[in-house]
């Protein structure tokens, strides 16, 4: 009856497992572990000798320490601010039932899907020096100059809070949904008032969800590059400091900075995993559906609906601004509050100018390549992790999540280090400067996402189905093709879609690794911004968002159908 572990696999099964596991493990070690080890090695080496001199440099340079400190404190502040927006928002949508609750509740989670760079330029158009809101305040108060400048730490925190609240929002919603309504009802029956229940029952029970969200925001914020890069100015955090060091040729220093950033992220990952293990004991109750406060009075309902809608619109305002600006032709907006002339010129330009259109094709092509590789690789890797037992399986699983924990900047520096030399015997080839480096980076960055999707897809279906196929005489390949593949396809495809969309808008690794001939959309957006062609940048941003939406709609339908065929 004991089925979980199979200590004595048969000879054919062992051989077969090895034939699959060895290539998968080698690839992971080569692409995920090895580049980071090379970075570590480079950080303690000078002219072929071991030295800690670079670390001494780092810790004795004021600017370096300032960047490290800036990364840490802005991340902590981002956690606080994101919680301040996300938790009340979730409680609001959880507690009250009013018209439009579902749609606005879903919209509130939108910012997490948009590529960070697009979000960042959206803020620029709304509250940047010449943004709509900034002009509005300036006009209203009759000021000579803009009332504020969107630079430095406050700007970064503003953007972080505005985009990362989603983690708190979603985790709180999930936590509340898991919570047994009976518990709060019990507290109420014991005479506790609303605030007392919130303080003494709800929040303590939400602690695990909130902690997980906090760690995620911390990691995301540590890894954040777009906001500090666009708004930071003289204010540097580790990610932008790494970029600057790399571009200015201070390679050893860049290595040390990368090691520092990677270590901080890994520590956060360690805490997160520990917390998730502990969390399993906390989930209690059978999940009686929570009673949502159904508001009867029509006027209060309208008020709540308006509040919910207003709140969400406020959160989506930057993105709406982006759409608006994309319709503003060059010179169509000078000093007025809102642009006066709108046209499709920017979009026409995209189609007409091959220089602008090429990046869209590049991104589609590179994202498609990376995602195809992700699908094949992660299918095999997930099969191994879920269905086979072998020595080192736990390590394989760790390598599969590692790229998720490492900031894009760290991965990019690792690849730039590893694949800029031609030493085939050491697994190093010159890929930097070629087309292949970015698809490779996208592939690595998205391994965790697709692998996780594939792993949960494999966990969801009964392994006896594979045994049934074998008992009917089907060999391993036939079983995979005719049973496993159709059954994991919905989950795998969902992961693949998300990976494709992420790769489409990837910026952080791209900016370190791209080659001008095959530059992706994000780099072109930045170039437009640099050339003060805001309309062009906005149009590209909108096209990117639209491409993602199309992928989601088409893909979502396909995935749902797939789920339909294998449901049961």
């Amino acid at each position, binding site marked *: 009856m004991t089925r979980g572990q199979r200590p004595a696999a048969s000879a054919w099964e062992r051989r077969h497992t090895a034939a699959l596991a060895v290539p998968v493990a080698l690839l992971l070690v080569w692409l995920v572990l090895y580049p980071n080890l090379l970075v570590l090695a480079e950080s303690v080496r000078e002219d072929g000798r071991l030295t800690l001199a670079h670390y001494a440099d780092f810790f004795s340079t004021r600017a370096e320490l300032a960047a490290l400190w800036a990364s840490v404190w802005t991340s902590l502040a981002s956690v606080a601010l994101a919680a301040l927006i996300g938790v009340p928002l979730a409680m609001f949508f959880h507690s009250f039932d009013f018209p439009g609750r579902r749609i606005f509740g879903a919209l509130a989670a939108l910012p997490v899907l948009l590529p960070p760079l697009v979000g960042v330029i959206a803020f620029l158009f709304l509250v940047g020096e010449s943004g709509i809101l900034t002009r509005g305040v300036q006009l209203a108060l009759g000021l000579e100059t803009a009332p504020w400048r969107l630079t430095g730490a406050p700007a970064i925190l503003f953007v972080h809070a505005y985009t990362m609240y989603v983690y708190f929002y979603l985790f709180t919603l999930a936590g509340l949904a898991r919570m047994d309504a009976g518990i709060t009802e019990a507290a109420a029956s014991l005479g506790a008032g609303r605030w007392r229940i919130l303080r003494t029952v709800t929040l303590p029970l939400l602690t695990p969800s909130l902690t997980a969200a906090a760690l995620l925001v911390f990691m995301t914020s540590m890894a954040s590059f777009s906001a500090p890069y666009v708004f930071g100015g003289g204010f540097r955090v580790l990610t932008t400091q790494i970029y600057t060091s790399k571009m200015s040729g201070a390679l050893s220093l860049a290595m040390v900075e990368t090691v520092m950033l990677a270590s901080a992220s890994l520590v956060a990952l360690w805490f997160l995993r520990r917390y998730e293990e502990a969390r399993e004991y906390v989930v209690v109750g059978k999940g009686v559906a929570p009673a949502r406060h159904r508001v009867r009075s029509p006027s209060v309902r309208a008020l709540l609906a308006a509040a919910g809608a207003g709140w969400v619109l406020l959160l989506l305002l930057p993105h709406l601004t982006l759409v608006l600006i994309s319709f503003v032709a060059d010179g169509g907006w000078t000093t007025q509050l809102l642009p006066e002339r709108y046209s499709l010129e920017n979009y026409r330009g995209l189609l007409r100018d091959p220089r602008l259109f090429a990046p869209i094709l590049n991104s589609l092509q590179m994202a498609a390549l990376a995602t195809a590789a992700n699908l094949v690789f992660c299918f095999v890797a997930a099969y191994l992790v879920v269905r086979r037992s072998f020595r080192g399986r736990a390590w394989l699983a760790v390598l599969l999540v590692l790229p998720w924990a490492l900031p894009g900047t760290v991965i990019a520096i690792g690849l730039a280090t590893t694949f800029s030399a031609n030493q085939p015997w050491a697994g190093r080839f010159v890929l930097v400067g070629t087309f292949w480096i970015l698809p490779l980076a996208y592939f690595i960055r998205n391994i965790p996402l697709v692998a996780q999707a594939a792993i949960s897809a494999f966990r969801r279906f009964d392994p006896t189905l594979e045994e049934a196929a074998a008992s009917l005489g089907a060999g391993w390949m*036939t079983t995979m093709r005719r049973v496993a593949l159709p059954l994991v396809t919905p989950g795998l495809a969902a992961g693949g879609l998300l990976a494709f969309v992420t790769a489409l808008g990837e910026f952080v690794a791209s900016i370190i690794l791209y080659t001008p001939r095959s530059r992706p959309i994000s780099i072109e957006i930045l170039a437009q911004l640099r050339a003060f062609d805001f309309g062009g940048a906005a149009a590209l941003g909108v096209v990117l968002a639209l491409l993602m939406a199309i992928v989601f709609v088409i893909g979502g339908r396909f995935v749902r159908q797939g789920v339909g065929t294998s449901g049961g």
Partner: protein
Amino acid sequence: MSLELRGLRKRFGEVVAVRDFTLELEPGELMTLLGPSGCGKTTALRLIAGFETPDAGRVVFRGTDVTARSPQKRGFGMVFQSYALFPHLSVFENVAFGLKAQRKEASELGRLVEGALVRVDLLGYVDRRVQELSGGQQQRVALARALAIEPPLLLLDEPLSNLDASLRERTRTELRSLLKGLGITALYVTHDQEEAFDLSDRVAVMNDGELRQVGTPEELYDHPHDVFVAGFVGRANLLTGLLESPHGGELRVRLVGDALWPVDPEGTSGLGPGQAVQVVVRPEDLELVPEGHHASELVGVVSERVFRGARIAYHVKLADGTVVEVEANRRSDARGGRIAVRPRSHARAHVYPAAE
């Protein structure tokens, strides 16, 4: 000999799931592996199917050692407890799965699938999705799928345990006549003794990873080899006693209160007078009589009366607190007061050496 299992052994970590497992199946025989949950019967079945590899022992089929063969090369059909129907395939495609793996021609494929579905009376459901079927129908698709490949041996892992009681009873007689009609050799795993008796030519009782007794249902019921088999196959009273041989004649057992009961001579070799033994006697082999100070009487008080339809079970509490179950027909009506329990005229108690 169709299937021979020679000294199979399988360990999972600290737990030995199957040990010294030796069993032989005649061609066309319907054998059941019966035992409580966790006794290793499913592991034994999976060792035969090839999903597990034994730590020791051999699986021999028609004279060929198949221990090292992968499941798909053994070609044994298997019906799973969960049915394991492919949810993304229709009824037809499920049944055709094994035939396609055998690369059958399309025309032949259709004919064989239809044949398999006719056998289980599901021909009208060819194009249905398997989720649309009831539990009983799904079970029959699983059977049709396993039979379609015309396996030389069919393995069934508690295939009826997910059906409700009345359907289960009906299905097992149908299953027996179907399998007997096909003349297929089959090994069936269950924890349900009634099911085992209804279905099988022979039953192999397992406990704690070990085979305890193999025999026809009658053999098991009338002559259980040990206390476990006696208790697991049918209802049984378990008492303790001391063997005697009054006047040097046949063995008898002295129970509490000095009652002397006759003993089934089978299985008493090695046992002699003066030996402490465990005594097993079935409720229907006992009867209730008014206290009469007879040598074979156990005296007690009726503590419970359980209605079982045609019969009534009385729980009689003896002086030392032991409770003995007696099954009587409905007319007898004992209530309260002291009463005597004694074996019916031809009944014999089974005795086993007392556990140390």
